């Protein structure tokens, strides 16, 4: 029997370049939400460290090593990306989330200016450094926003909102680009 063909969340409408920013999809093969049970935070972090070489992140922070990343995702939970999780039975609630999000990388000189049209946070490099993350809004959508580098950010929203995310980012980028 033929296999089912997989589609990514932003397939068909990314990448695009508008002015000095480019939007591209971050394809996530593996991602799990890890939410430690009461009193198990330390044990979970230790297990993660052993298996993936990354600690459980502090609030508003990410940890990463090699291809593995952990992005703080709200009170008492993180999304662990790009590694096979150790057995956390009895330690944490683990749920697959790789298909639940649309992740877009926004990169370029105007990346910060574009996000300033949509995200009500202080994303200046001095206050929102590489590796910092926040749960916030992209216009009307709840989103996870992470700084990847001096001119690049990763924005994650619910998968079903991929088109709206691209629409919002595109419109904001067009406005910024039009200022010249």
């Amino acid at each position, binding site marked *: *029997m*033929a*296999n*089912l*063909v*997989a*589609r*990514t*969340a932003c397939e068909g409408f990314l990448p695009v370049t508008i002015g000095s920013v480019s939007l591209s999809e971050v394809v996530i093969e593996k991602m799990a*939400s890890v*939410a430690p*049970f*009461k009193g198990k935070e330390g044990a979970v972090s230790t297990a993660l460290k052993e298996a993936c070489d990354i600690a459980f992140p502090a609030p508003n922070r990410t940890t990463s090593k090699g291809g593995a990343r952990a992005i703080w995702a709200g009170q*008492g*939970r993180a999304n662990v990306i790009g590694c096979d999780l150790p057995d956390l039975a*009895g330690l*944490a*609630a*683990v*749920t*697959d*989330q*790789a*298909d*639940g*999000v649309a992740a877009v990388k926004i990169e370029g000189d105007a990346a910060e200016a574009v996000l*300033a*049209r*949509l*995200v*009500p*946070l*202080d994303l*200046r490099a*001095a*206050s929102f450094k590489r590796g910092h993350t926040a749960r916030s809004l992209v*216009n*009307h*959508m709840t989103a996870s926003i992470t700084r990847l580098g001096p001119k690049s950010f990763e924005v994650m*929203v*619910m*998968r*079903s*909102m*991929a*088109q*709206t995310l691209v*629409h*919002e980012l595109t*419109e*904001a980028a*067009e*406005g910024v*680009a*039009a*200022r010249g």
Partner: protein
Amino acid sequence: MRIAGKGLIDTSKTVSFSFDGRRIEGAEGDTVTSALLANDIRLVARSFKYHRPRGILTAGSEEPNALVTTGSGAGAEPNVRATMVEIHEGLEVKSQNRWPSLGFDVLSVNDLAAPFFGAGFYYKTFMWPGALWEKLYEPLIRRAAGLGALSGDNNEDRYERAYAFCDLLVIGAGPAGLMAALTAARAGADVILADEDSRMGGRLLAECEEIDGKPGHIWAAEAVAELAGMENVRLMPRTTVTGAYDQGTYGALERVGLHKAADGHLPRECFWRIVARRSILAAGALERPIAFPDNDRPGIMNAGAVRAYLNRWGVAAGKRVAVYGNNDGAHQTARDLMDAGVEVAAVIDSRKDASVALDAPVITGGRVIATSGRLGLEEITVATGSGQERLKVDCLAVSGGWNPTVHLACHMNGRPVWDEAIQSFVPKAGMIPGMEAAGAANGVFSTAGCLADGAKAGEAAAADLGKKASKTKMPKASDSAYRLEPLWVVEGKGRQWLDFQNDVTVKDVRLAAKENYRSVEHMKRYTTQGMAPDQGKNSNVGALAVLADATGRGIPETGTTTYRPPFVPVSIAAMGAGAQGKGFAPQRFTTSHAASVERGAPMIEAGMWYRPSYFPRPGEKTWRQACDREVTMVREAVGICDVSTLGKIDVQGPDAAAFLDFVYTNTMSTLPVGKVRYGLMLREDGHVMDDGTCARFGEGHFVITTTTAAAALVMRHLEFVAQGLRPDLDVQLVSVTEQWAQFGVVGPKSRDLLNDLLDAPISDETLPYMGHQAAQVMGVRGRLFRISFSGEHAYELAVPARFGEALYRVLVARAEMLGGGAYGMEALNVLRIEKGHITHAEIHGRTTAFDIGFDKMISRKKDCVGQKMAAREGMVEESREQLVGLKPVGAVKQLTAGAHIFVEDAQAKRENDQGYVTSVCYSPTVQSFLGLGFLKNGRARYGERVRLVDHLRGVEAVCEVVNPVFFDPEGGRLRG
């Protein structure tokens, strides 16, 4: 009249625009008002109430008279202050509130009737009969009074919203603001400098003054250039800070593209939210007029504005000008005009002892007591002390002193303090946390004083921010004293205008006092002084002085009214930018969206999701035909429906079962692993919140479903319970709605279809009704649930969302081979009504478990949210409206949801109301219309005939009350 060699703009570059259809030529850098004055046009507008001819009073955003409409069509913008509009090729400007033309305005008859139209006229006159107010008086008054109008069309122009953050926000880029910004920025602070003008420099662009031996505007340009070169500075010209809010947040409106022809994606305006740790208010001061008789004729202008037009735009506001003031500053206007070769007819100084060193006729102790000229000033009459003198002039430059622009400092309800020396209000410390005023906004009126005050404020802000400012070398500038003697009102024949924008006179304010509206807030409301977009920029202090005098109190004792944000009008388009069209709300698309659209399905919104309504096939002319076919297809073969939009919540933890027992009315802790149970949740007030299924995956692992519409509501509720009500339980909740694409495979052939696709076939034994298991489908690991919303033998198959589209296409193709196919929301609804299943049409927030017949689902063996409240007196009474089925008796064209239920022969009026209809459909299975509704004591009334009356749509039907399960009440089909 343009004066050759004057001004800071390049007059060799011609730009043309239209004013009331007439082509006007100006120069690059002109505003509409400077260009009109350059063309000797003084009449620009008609006033709000009396349709008085009005001209240009000021050169800034405080302009009360020269309000115009710019643009045309959907994007036309009314009530724009012409002083703030930079001209560009193709700009259309129209005057307002006049018919048929600005020069001849029929409604100027209002002015003749003015003796009747004073403050309070409407309140006193249009009292009775009451009904006429809404129908007659108000529409008439609104038509006669008012300014420009919106087009009423949808404006497609782009606007923008944005956020900015900084250490220090400097508001205003005059001498004080520039020094403050330079000082703080050199110390390393992250600075935003915002100024509402297109060019930074403030009054330095409007005056002939020297700083450090160079013209003031050159010094300003150098300061701006230095700031522009610093990485820690953001310059925001054309940006008016409009409001000061909590936590150091400021609103600001930037005119991004208004000074150009509409240009692709360039926003017209941007509404900024700026968050600053500190701010410096260096917004300058506004000159105030003097209330002398007929002081509103076109050609009567503020003296500082006359200087601004001359020195910045090279325009003389008149050919023969008189200057009238109560302070030394006004003399400069005469000096500048004479230097430019403009004839100054007289300098009238109200102070008897004023020394005026000018080579022009000077009248000290003089007062302007009358003016004339129908559409523009022609003559003034001056009381000289010894007699009267008439002067032919076409411009009168007036200065009654200056008011510090304290508005922003007052936005959090702080009151400014009276400064006797300058006869005006100044901000006091702490009115806005983190804000300090500097320069003219702080009551410092000399250039040298402003520079020093700005530097001081910059240093203080830097120190507050933990930065050390190096010693600032103060530039040299003039430090002339600002001497004035208060002059508020000049008595004489004719109205003395205070608030030009709202047409309020001295007499109105006195009348208010006389009628006992003595409080300043009452006077404001009675007269409308200081209201609306203007917020009393020109008139507040003058009106207070009149009120103080009329009530025998001092000005500080009288106090000010509230200065409200925004400081200048902010277009709703800017505040709501990005929130129309697709930006109104996120669109949520299922993985099967494209496949559904390809099949021609009209998509309908459910929450933010888009779901297929039905799937039309060739030959089907109406939705009903498609819907009927889809229902029959499901009942006889197999149908496919995307149910991914239902909320899915993963519940895990040692106490997961206990937690679910607490949120569901029924018991979930007894559910075996591999089984699914229907569940009902109550709100804390005992009414039904939502229903869904609960599947157990492990000892401490469940996945529950919610309805599409209530997914977020349920998640929020569960989070609240977990964090607030039961923090003792160790449980974690994660939404997995988006992770899984889930499809209903529904109908007698559903298992056959699935067994073709599953790696391991299923049977009644391996997967009985209300069971679930992991399933491998075409190489992908998924989840298979045997549950049913339609009453048929049915499954829901879930796979990770990336495979959703592919699986949906396979399922639909297979179903079609078996005589089935895709079905939409319409058929889904019919199928569930036939089975008497509820949706949020029934659990609409006011119904209880008892009402829907699920009383027994509230377990008494344990506590749960809403249990106690659901048992309250009145919540379980037989007389309550209970869920029933409704089946038409005889021929019926339609049933409608929303109809009310009456006893068959009772009159259809409120007192006889017995209940209402919530859901209706035509059932091809039962071959009848069917309804669900709530009827008083309904379950005891099966068999009774009732009348359904939809007063709104005018539809009536007689129905029999029946059990709400119309089809297969035994449920035999479910078990296959």
